[in-house]
């Protein structure tokens, strides 16, 4: 097994709002091994993006604050690094693709110049070298007429093209770790597949590690080596992709998988997990999922269950598996 490139240890990221403290990430721990693709899944508002942004130290403060925990990158705690070294790493060793290709590019610059800017900054290339390299990168992400597109402004490109440009930007300095925060959510299905294929290709070619944030289980099935299921800012279940899809243990994971339509099987009504994601302000001292869970027991109402091993690398936080405790 490869070494861990990133290790989250008991991360807590809170946001202070007028209505109270929003515990967006509330004790998340997992590892991302080198050259693996880890998918972080969950419903909207379960802390996926905040988990990713915490790593890049992009949490706006105030109101956000990383309260506790560690994020180790190659054994170094990123949360203790100073701003300069984080800045030197961002876009260089660790880079990120955002969800909205429509708004992630600056409307007043030519897209090529935006790619070149990163290259000049991190790789200390001259303007001309950066230009040449940027054109090359545009070609690399499968955009024809790269020279012409270099000179285009974001509003002249389609969503798919812009996401490719974003990808080119993220890949410009050959990062070790690529964080993709729902990179395909805003795109239509065919473009989605192309972008995912692009990420997969680049991963192979550059030997990258990928952390993919998504709520789309189709994407997970296609991309992931390892899956982390988040709910209410906590890890509910984590494991290799096969284990998660074949033998999901947590009722929440089971629910998520059931809510995915299956080809060929006609259903009158698509399954939906009842209820909504709990408010992250006053989280109860119980399993956060217990209110929506069809297997809820008395013991679920007291304390959040710990993660327990249920298979090789497969862990789940549910009273059903803590043994003994869930008997009643």
């Amino acid at each position: 097994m490869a070494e861990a490139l990133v290790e989250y240890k008991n991360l807590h990221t809170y946001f202070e709002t007028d209505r109270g403290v929003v515990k967006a990430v509330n004790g998340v721990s997992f590892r991302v091994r080198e050259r693996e693709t880890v998918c972080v899944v969950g419903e909207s508002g379960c802390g996926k993006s905040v988990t990713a942004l915490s790593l890049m130290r992009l949490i706006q403060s105030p109101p956000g604050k990383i309260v506790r925990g560690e994020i180790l990158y190659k054994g170094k705690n990123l949360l203790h690094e100073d701003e300069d070294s984080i800045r030197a790493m961002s876009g260089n060793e660790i880079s990120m693709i955002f969800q909205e290709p429509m708004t992630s590019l600056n409307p007043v610059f030519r897209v090529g110049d935006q790619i070149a800017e990163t290259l000049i900054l991190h790789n200390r290339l001259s303007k001309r070298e950066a230009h040449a390299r940027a054109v090359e990168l545009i070609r690399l992400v499968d955009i024809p007429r790269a020279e012409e597109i270099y000179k285009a402004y974001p509003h002249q490109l389609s969503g798919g093209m812009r996401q490719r440009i974003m990808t080119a930007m993220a890949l410009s300095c050959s990062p070790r770790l690529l964080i993709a925060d729902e990179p395909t959510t805003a795109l239509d299905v065919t473009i989605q597949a192309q972008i995912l294929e692009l990420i997969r290709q680049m991963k192979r070619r550059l030997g990258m590690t990928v952390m993919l944030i998504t709520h789309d289980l189709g994407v997970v099935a296609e991309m992931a080596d390892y899956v982390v299921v988040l709910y209410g800012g906590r890890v509910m279940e984590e494991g290799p992709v096969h284990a998660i899809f074949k033998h999901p243990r947590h009722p929440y994971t089971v629910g998520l998988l059931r809510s995915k339509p299956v080809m060929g099987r006609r259903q009158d009504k698509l399954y939906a997990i009842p209820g909504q994601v709990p408010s992250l302000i006053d989280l109860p001292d119980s399993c956060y999922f217990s209110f929506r869970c069809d297997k809820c027991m008395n013991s679920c109402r007291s304390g959040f269950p710990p993660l327990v091993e249920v298979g090789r690398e497969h862990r789940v936080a549910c009273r059903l598996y803590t043994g003994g405790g869930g008997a009643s």
Partner: protein
Amino acid sequence: MNGMTKYDKGIQTPWQLAMRRFRRNRPAMLGLIVLGLVMAFCFLGPMLSPYEILQTNIRNAKKPPSTEHWLGTDVAGRDVLLRLMEGGKISLMVGIFTTLIQVIMGTLIGGVSGYYGGRIDGLLMRFTDICMSLPFMPIALILASVMSDMGIKPQHRIYYLMVIIGMLSWPQLARLIRGQVLTLREREFMLAAEALGISDSRRILRHLLPNVIPLVMVDATLSIGGSILSESAMSFLGLGVAPPYPSWGNMVDVISDLSNLRRPWIWVPPGVMIVLTVMAVYAVGNGLRDALDPKMMRQGS
């Protein structure tokens, strides 16, 4: 419109697109031409005149237009045409420099306030609110009369005037920019820039400010007109540019002596110039607004 023709023409920058829209705007182009002529008249005209602005000639005073003095002479026998040009120079300079002060103050305070937010924002915006709630004319008049009491030389008063008008009119621009920066700051491309490891100062200067420039340009252009009016009003009341130095405002002031009502060549031309120039400036400003952001057409203020 298909893709081919778009690329055949080559890729146009947003700036080029805006300029094309501007050129198609008749009133704006007309305004620009008028403004160009006024500028040429005021800045180049005096060089062609055989007279001196301060040169008086009582025996030749209050003469109607003639071949020697195309617009006649004023109460002290000075050439009105030359004074019109020189006065225009001063009025335009006041307009431009006060706007410059406004833009610098407004961008700085609005930008910092919007970008950093929180307590800095609160503090700066309350300060802006205070400045905004000061009634412009009374304060300007008080400051101007303090200026006269302190015995500031007439030829220096124009500089003080620029600062006074400039300092009293920046708050609006500051608020406008703050609002714009606030929305821009939350846009994903700013986060993306941060994720690429781009430094704070570079993010503000290279990524944020260029997005604010159209707004500043429009507001600045319009405020040149406003400043010319303020200067004229103050000079008309005898508190701005002081005689013997001319400005369009104090040239119109001669009708405070009603006997001059019979000598329209002295006070009508500067009045016409004020109206013409300010209208031209507004036409250009509105044209810029429509060209730079078609969605923002005719909004507020």
